[in-house]
């Protein structure tokens, strides 16, 4: 360029031209042949909302400065960009835009709407990123909703299933008894109404019988309803047959002398222990709470935390089961009414008091949501906690305190990772069930990706049956994004080891945190 032509003022509007030139000349391309040491960046794939915001700018400028600096220091830098496409916000946006609910159209149609919206959003965010001057190698872009990426996600499912890390198990979900479907926490709406708080006496269990209490379902009326035990104030007396413990605050002096003692649940007569937990609000009701399967979210966490028994008192339609004893076959409303009458008649009910209530309800039909145990898919993350901590020790952390945040998080893992979701816009769980024997049928790896609601298994079940029930649940979007370090290296193609640092010592992987932490291998 001629030196005489240097303009008087710096013209930042020329930024666009430089961006175009870099792209045309492919200057950020990752070579990957090992002629230079490799530096691989696991760029967090953002959710394609359609526009980048200043929070993105902060994180991506950090990543981009790092990429540019490492190139200057002689590294062959792989700086890819991915898009974490699946999830509820897109589904909700599609419903708004098209004025539909997801079940109003076919799964395929709904998915297509989501893909169209996401494609548009990716394009505009990509333009935003280019305007910021980020130096990604766009030939390495990955899009989690694309078949080639879904193939990897499903392959990771099959591999983990094979390794015994994925299993099916029962897990509490938000359930609409009317729609008979699980709904995500984000789909639960809350509404205010009034209800009655019933003050019910739980009489003390006869001490002589303590040794016989092997199960809280131990029955047989032994206690006197009038004998003062512990007073419980509940809005859900219809769940008493599923009560497995009574919990108080550890510093509540009204009750601490009762800790470890047993009381008898009225009407159903099981004996339950009195335990203490910080989560109890001593100011609410009487300060003593019954734990049921499952009145609300706190019940779920207490049941997990204290390894309490689970009593299924309700079926998918919200009808009481045999476990509810004399209330079997009733719906929840009738059961509630009958229970209150019985409590009163038998002398357990001391008083009733009107209270305001905030009830979770189904966003579609406004039916109050129940928590039910349903069959779900899990990754056994708790088996990986120790491995995770060892790996954390081998990494360099920036900033350093993020390491303890990660380790604390791993240690606090109370239950395994539930990876199944009852949605549509996500990677399908690659599973069918044999219609006759119920056996889990997996696809062949070379057929991935598959959608069990569309595709069929290639072979008959071992039992000879040729009819199958597709798994309609889909995978949590984190199942997509959690394989990104492997995916950007090209996994499962065998060559991936050349771009993955645990295998090659001359390759550095830089993992930038999905929220604020950055960590580097």
């Amino acid at each position, binding site marked *: 360029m001629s030196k005489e032509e240097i303009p008087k003022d710096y013209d930042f509007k*020329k930024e666009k031209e430089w961006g175009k030139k870099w792209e045309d000349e492919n200057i950020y391309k990752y070579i990957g042949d090992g002629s230079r040491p490799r530096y691989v960046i696991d760029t967090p794939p953002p959710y394609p909302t359609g526009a980048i915001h200043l929070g993105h*700018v902060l994180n991506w400028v950090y990543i981009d400065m790092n990429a540019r600096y490492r190139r200057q220091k002689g590294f062959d830098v792989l700086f890819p960009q991915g898009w974490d496409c699946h999830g509820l916000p897109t589904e909700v946006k599609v419903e708004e835009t098209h004025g539909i609910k997801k079940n109003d159209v076919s799964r395929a149609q709904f998915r297509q709407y989501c893909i169209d919206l996401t494609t548009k959003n990716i394009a505009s965010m990509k333009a935003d990123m280019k305007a910021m001057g980020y130096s990604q190698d766009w030939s390495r872009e990955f899009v989690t909703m694309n078949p080639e990426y879904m193939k990897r996600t499903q392959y990771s499912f099959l591999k983990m299933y094979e390794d015994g890390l994925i299993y099916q198990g029962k897990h509490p979900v938000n359930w609409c008894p009317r729609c008979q479907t699980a709904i995500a926490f984000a789909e639960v709406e809350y509404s205010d109404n009034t209800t009655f708080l019933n003050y019910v006496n739980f009489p003390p269990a006869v001490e002589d019988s303590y040794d016989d209490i092997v199960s809280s379902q131990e029955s047989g009326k032994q206690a006197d309803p009038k004998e003062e035990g512990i007073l419980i104030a509940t809005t859900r007396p219809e769940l008493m047959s599923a009560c497995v413990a009574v919990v108080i605050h550890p510093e509540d002096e009204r009750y601490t002398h009762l800790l470890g003692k047993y009381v008898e649940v009225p009407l159903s007569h099981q004996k339950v222990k009195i335990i203490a937990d910080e989560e109890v609000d001593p100011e609410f009701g009487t300060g003593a709470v019954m734990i049921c399967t499952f009145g609300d979210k706190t019940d779920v966490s207490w049941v997990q935390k204290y390894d309490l028994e689970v009593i299924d008192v309700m079926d998918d339609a919200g009808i009481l089961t045999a476990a509810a004893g004399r209330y079997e076959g009733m719906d929840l409303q009738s059961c509630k009414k009958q229970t209150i009458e019985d409590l009163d008649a038998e002398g357990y009910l001391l008083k009733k008091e009107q209270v305001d209530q905030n009830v979770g309800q189904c966003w579609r039909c406004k039916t109050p949501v129940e928590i039910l145990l349903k069959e779900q898919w899990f990754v056994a993350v708790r088996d990986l906690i120790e491995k995770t901590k060892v790996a954390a020790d081998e990494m360099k952390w920036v900033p350093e305190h993020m390491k303890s945040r990660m380790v604390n998080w791993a240690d606090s893992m109370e239950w395994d990772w539930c990876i199944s979701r009852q949605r549509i816009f996500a990677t399908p769980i690659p599973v069918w069930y044999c219609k006759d024997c119920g056996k889990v049928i997996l696809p062949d790896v070379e057929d991935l990706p598959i959608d069990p609601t569309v595709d069929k298994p290639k072979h008959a079940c071992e039992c000879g049956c040729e009819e199958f029930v597709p798994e309609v649940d889909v995978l949590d979007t984190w199942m997509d994004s959690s394989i990104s370090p492997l995916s950007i290296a090209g996994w499962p193609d065998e060559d991936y080891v050349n771009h993955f640092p645990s295998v090659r010592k001359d390759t550095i992987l830089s993992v930038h945190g999905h929220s604020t932490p950055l960590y580097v291998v």
Partner: protein
Amino acid sequence: MVFGEDGNKMSKSRPEFVVGPEEVIEKYGADPLRTWAANSVPGSDVIFDWKDIKHGYRFLRKFWNAFRFISMQIFDEEVAYEDVKDNFGPLDLWILSKLNNLNKKVDEAFADYNFADTITSIERFFWHDFCDEYIEAVKYRLYTDVSDESRKAAKYTLKTVVETSLKLMAPIAPFFTEEVYQYFSDESIHTTLWPEVYEELISEEMETKGETTVELIDEVRRFKSASKIPLNAELAEVNVYTSDDALVEIFNQFEDDIKGTLKIKDLAISQGKPEVHEKIIEVEPDMSQIGPTFKGDAGKIIGYLKSTDIDEIGAALEKNNELTIGEIVVPEGMLNVKKEIVGASGKKVDILQSENIDMIVEVIR
């Protein structure tokens, strides 16, 4: 997390405080926004403030203007390191030592993800040491015929500082650095390697000496500016006094640069203190006192003051604090006496006393 100018987390619920990247890019380009991001600590909360964007933009313009100003000099002759390495002037060695230390510091900061350290160090060096001091201090070597060697050393130094600074800044401001680098090479700056460190140019001694000299230059420059003397106007004589032997040695070593930068005709560096005293240069009657007191004799006093040599009046006043005119005795309090400070030579001087180093400067305009 990003906080808005109102101090709250930027969120859709307060749209008036939400700033989108596109708005910043439209007004100032992406590089000032990147500079804002770089000047933060990963993992901490960051406040968005337009002031920071404007500051980043101003720095880029400052860089551009400096580059443009010296571009006439640095591209007209090719100067290789080998040609000048034995001819560097003391201020060249000062800025080159600082440049190479900056290179190491920024390199380390990038490696440790201390991004805020990278941008603040580069800015302080380029803006303050290079633009404010070095460029001003080499102009005389470029425009007047000091010597071929001196001019070439200055040109090499200017070019090296700009080119190296650009490469250190390339990860932060990729567009701006590319734009400037195009005048240096046909290659993209983003395919060049990190600039080499010249260990032999790093000298703590030259840095300290250079800072001390800059202290002296700044002191005199501030005086010129406060006295409304154009910066390129000549000063007849500057005498620097210090009780510190080391400072005498430093100022002697940097004598050419001090004289050249400040346009000093005669510069003297001495150990000790300046010999200065007050001298009476004008005496006028204070008529509000003289009239009522001396009445008819007032005319005599005025006549005497007009007709007598100021030095004679001054000598008498300094000796007796009063003037004896025949029978009349006028106390000094009834006169308006104007004094000025003069040096050993008897010429009027301005005295500048440094707050930071042991140095008194006597300036004769």
